[in-house]
């Protein structure tokens, strides 16, 4: 008997980082208590730099004041991974799912997140690949197109992935992205050098790739979601 896995998708539009974090904390708590099913948040952030649990702020190349002056925020988080940038035209997915129910460990989970982004890129004829050892993420050649940083608490996930559709790549100049120097950052727009379809379509495709890779066959869309719903 094939288990039907259900995924509730919240499409949130542009959300402030801390608000998204607050929502994730609540959903993780609800998921641990079996109050909700596996959930996926799909959103974008205003210009935001974030650090992981290791607090690798030596990879921030400018001061926090400088970031504020360009209209960006900086946040320290509990996720794994190094420093990264989130901003407009970058598709972010935060899966709040039970790895125990899926029978996945951290390593397999991260591999599937990489695969999700690789599949999306391939829809546009872009040949992306997972990173080598120590360079987790999704690459086109030696240019990074997708980043990953997750937190796992009692086998429930939070944080997730960020895929560059067409963000302003100049923002990445203020950091050593993911702590990997001498490698560039890229975007879908840059790789295909064509007009991209509507961004919402690309985001929906990313969600479908996620559902496909993780075996979720029943998708419930929470359209026009707002944080007020939580």
């Amino acid at each position, binding site marked *: 008997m094939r288990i039907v896995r259900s995924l509730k998708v919240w499409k949130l539009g542009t959300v402030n980082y801390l608000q998204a974090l607050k929502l994730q904390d609540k959903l993780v708590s609800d998921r641990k208590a079996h109050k909700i099913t596996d959930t996926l948040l799909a959103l974008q952030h205003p210009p935001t730099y974030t650090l992981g*649990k*290791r607090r690798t702020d030596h990879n921030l190349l400018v001061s926090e004041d400088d970031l504020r002056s360009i209209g960006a925020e900086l946040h320290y988080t509990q996720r*794994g991974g190094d420093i990264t940038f989130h901003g407009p035209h970058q598709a972010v997915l935060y899966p709040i799912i039970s790895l125990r129910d899926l*029978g996945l460990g951290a390593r397999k989970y991260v591999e599937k997140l990489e695969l999700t982004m690789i599949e999306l890129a391939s829809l546009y004829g872009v040949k992306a690949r997972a990173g080598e*050892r120590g360079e987790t993420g999704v690459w086109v050649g030696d240019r990074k197109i997708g980043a990953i940083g997750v937190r796992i*608490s*009692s086998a429930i996930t939070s944080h997730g992935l960020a895929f560059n559709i067409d963000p302003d790549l100049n923002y990445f100049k203020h950091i050593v992205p993911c702590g990997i120097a001498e490698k560039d950052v890229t975007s879908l727009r840059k790789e295909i050098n064509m007009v991209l379809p509507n961004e919402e379509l690309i985001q929906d495709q990313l969600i479908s790739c996620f559902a496909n890779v993780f075996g979720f066959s029943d998708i419930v869309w929470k359209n026009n979601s707002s944080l007020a719903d939580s």
Partner: protein
Amino acid sequence: MALRTWASSIANALRVSLLDGLKYASSHEWVKLDGSVVTIGITDHAQDHLGEVVFVEVPEAGGSMAQGTSYGAVESVKATSDVNSPISGDIVEVNTKPSEVPGLINSSPYQEGWMIKVKASNPSELESLMDPKEYTKSCEEEHAAR
């Protein structure tokens, strides 16, 4: 065997089940009873599923913990995973070696990769943990869920 007799008399004194080696939690931590002090770490199954560990966070000695709460975290492949305590008690000793050499969690999860030692405040909690056979079965069931 002398060791087993000694362990069994301690076990009787604490009124817990006799431990045959280590006991395990379904969240993939192991415990080893040594008198009233319990050593805790994560299992080989856990380290294998995490991948290469790059960062380990352990608490300071002296704090206390409830069963099921997080006492630290382990980072591997861009994922930080909380590690939970299978029992309640006071943290009497912390192993700082994994913070310096995170790979110990992978290479020696049951020996050099031990994480904390706790003075059990509620020894009956040990009874709810699994023996090696039950733990192996639990891992197999998890694997089958894929």
